[in-house]
């Protein structure tokens, strides 16, 4: 693998991580908020 290909691959991984974080962080926040509401069901 050439140096430029290796750099391209690494930046692709970084973009993938950033995109997944952009999706998963709000989703996990939403799940957390929902679960705090669920507590009332078993209180």
């Amino acid at each position, binding site marked *: 693998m050439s140096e430029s290909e290796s750099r391209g691959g690494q930046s692709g991984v970084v973009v993938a991580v950033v995109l*997944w974080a952009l999706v998963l962080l709000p*989703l996990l926040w*939403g799940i957390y*908020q*929902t679960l705090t509401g*669920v507590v*009332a*069901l078993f209180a």
Partner: protein
Amino acid sequence: MGVPREGAISFLARDRTIAGPGFNRWLIPPAALLVHLSIGEIYAFSVFKTPLVERFGTGLTPIAIIFSISIVMLGLSAAVFGTWVERAGPRAAMFTAALCWSSGFFISALGVATSQLWLVYLGYGLIGGIGLGIGYISPVSTLIKWFPDRPGLATGLAIMGFGGGALIASPLTDRLLTAYASNPVDAIVPSFLTLGVIYLIAMMIGAFVVRLPAEDWQPEGWTPPTEEETSALETTANVSADSAIRTPQFWLLWTVLFCNVTAGIGLLEQAAPMIQDFFAVTAAAAAGFVGLLSLANMAGRLGWSSTSDYIGRKPIYMVYLGVGTVMYFVLASFGSASLAMFLVLTLVILSFYGGGFATIPAYLKDLFGVAQVGAIHGRLLTAWSAAGVAGPLIINAIADYQTSAGRTGADLYTLSLYIMVGVLVIGFVANLLVRPVDSRFHMDREEDREKETASQGATAGSET
């Protein structure tokens, strides 16, 4: 001015979205999820209901119509624009969906600010609904093309986002309504504008990132299965969207989706009052129960759809509809006996509801091939629109009838639950009847026939 506009249009063009060698396909699921998490806000619309009723000084029904228009437009626009989505490519489709969905919020804000309810119907309902339909099918068909080795996982990932969108939008809207003004009624306009901007940015990022695989691309280390290696229902050929709707398989799957969605809505519509009438829990606990159902719905979309990659599409629908029938029956007959049993039954039923939504594109891909799966999926979503209208109508009519007959508590729901058992049985039988699509509908065979007809015409023409 002409050059930049052409540049912008060519950026959206299908051939500009073809990925180069070495493109990381794991960039596509988050791009798809950005779109589906945004349009999934529709399920959190109920948070706006009370402030909107107060703002327009009207009853619940005129406000509920906004949601109904959106869902009907979702199905209609997916059906009408499905072929365009396949032709124009995912970037143009996601870009259009982003514009429609966000401008729906902006127009609705104008409607609320000027006290014009029809503008909210036009914005959130009509234009936003078109954004929903285009935004729903485009990422799904793109993911199927990137994950031919795991189509169930791919469609589950995207459609999980649609279920998850409400989990974000519901608490977010709640906070916006309290943050912008002391009275939520005064906070509707800035909340609509904020949500419109957030969703525009999120969906545009998705549209920017999305790519289509090259014609000859396939995942590393994976070879397409031959006709002998595929399951009986899977095809290696392709069927066009126009031909697909002429096959019995399309209408059987339409029935399957209609029944699955109607039964799910039958539970979702009554979830909060049902648990209160069954077990006399508090309103806060009932809201927590609805939150749990949303989580089960979302988990089912990813979990069951991924499972279908291993056990097959037809068998998993046997589970959704067959086991679902038994569970609904137990719920109708003994649901009020134990809270724990009630919770297990309802959560599993809702996970089947989500699974049914998420697995259907992969089922379509198995039966009709990958070439026009987005357009075919779009046409099938009219079943969702029909169920979205029929389901609540049936449920509410039965609830009214039971109340007027003097029934109370768990007895209020018994009849509608038994009706849902019947609906699921119809879906089960429809799935049982699904057979492989006749090869005369395959695209290459149709093209051959057209060429044959054309050459016969030319020969006949030269002879005369």
